[in-house]
């Protein structure tokens, strides 16, 4: 989860107005929010992990032909996609 320090004191090494990613326990998150130290500003940033969306991979061998027309990437540059 992404948090922002909104109180006057540093929280977990982060200064006021700083945002940070942390995996807090439910109890500690509730206490920090209740005392006015932090607020939730979003889900964990993408750099911190997780995957979603579309990937496209290319494979194949130069000069190969797709004899069975199944688009399984024998030909150079031919791609397969997954979501």
């Amino acid at each position: 989860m992404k948090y922002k320090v909104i109180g006057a004191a540093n929280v977990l090494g982060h200064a006021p107005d700083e945002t940070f990613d942390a995996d807090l326990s439910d109890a500690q998150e509730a206490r920090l929010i209740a005392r006015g130290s932090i607020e939730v500003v979003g889900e964990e940033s993408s750099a911190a992990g997780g995957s979603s969306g579309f990937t496209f991979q290319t494979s194949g061998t130069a000069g190969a032909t797709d004899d069975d027309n199944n688009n399984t990437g024998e030909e150079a540059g031919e791609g397969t996609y997954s979501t």
Partner: protein
Amino acid sequence: MKFVLKDAFIEVDGTDLSNHASTVTIGQPADEVEVTGFGGEFREFAQGLKDGTITAAFFQDFAAGSVHSVLGPLHASGDTFTLKIRPTSAVVGTTNPQWDMTARLFDYSPLSGGVGEASTTDVSFRNADQSGIVESTS
């Protein structure tokens, strides 16, 4: 080099209360268990169960995210929380070790002082799990 306390770091349940603290003491007493047997002239003692107590004095502050908002609910709920103490606010290192303790707060005085004096609160954090006070240098 002899060390003078000027910049101790005290984090209570994730909140840095260093600039409101004026004293801190880390105590790790162990029971003295007598194991004296016959045949000798002196008593012998073994180390028994250890205890972990960290005491601190804070200047009271009722602002959001400050002393009272941290200590009051911890005392009221009896929840365990993490204490982090360092000699200075610099990063943890061999010359700046950190002591961590999972703690509970059993007593809390939200208001104390005379007319014209700063209101202070002396707290005693007690060990709350089998890890005790753990020292780290990285």
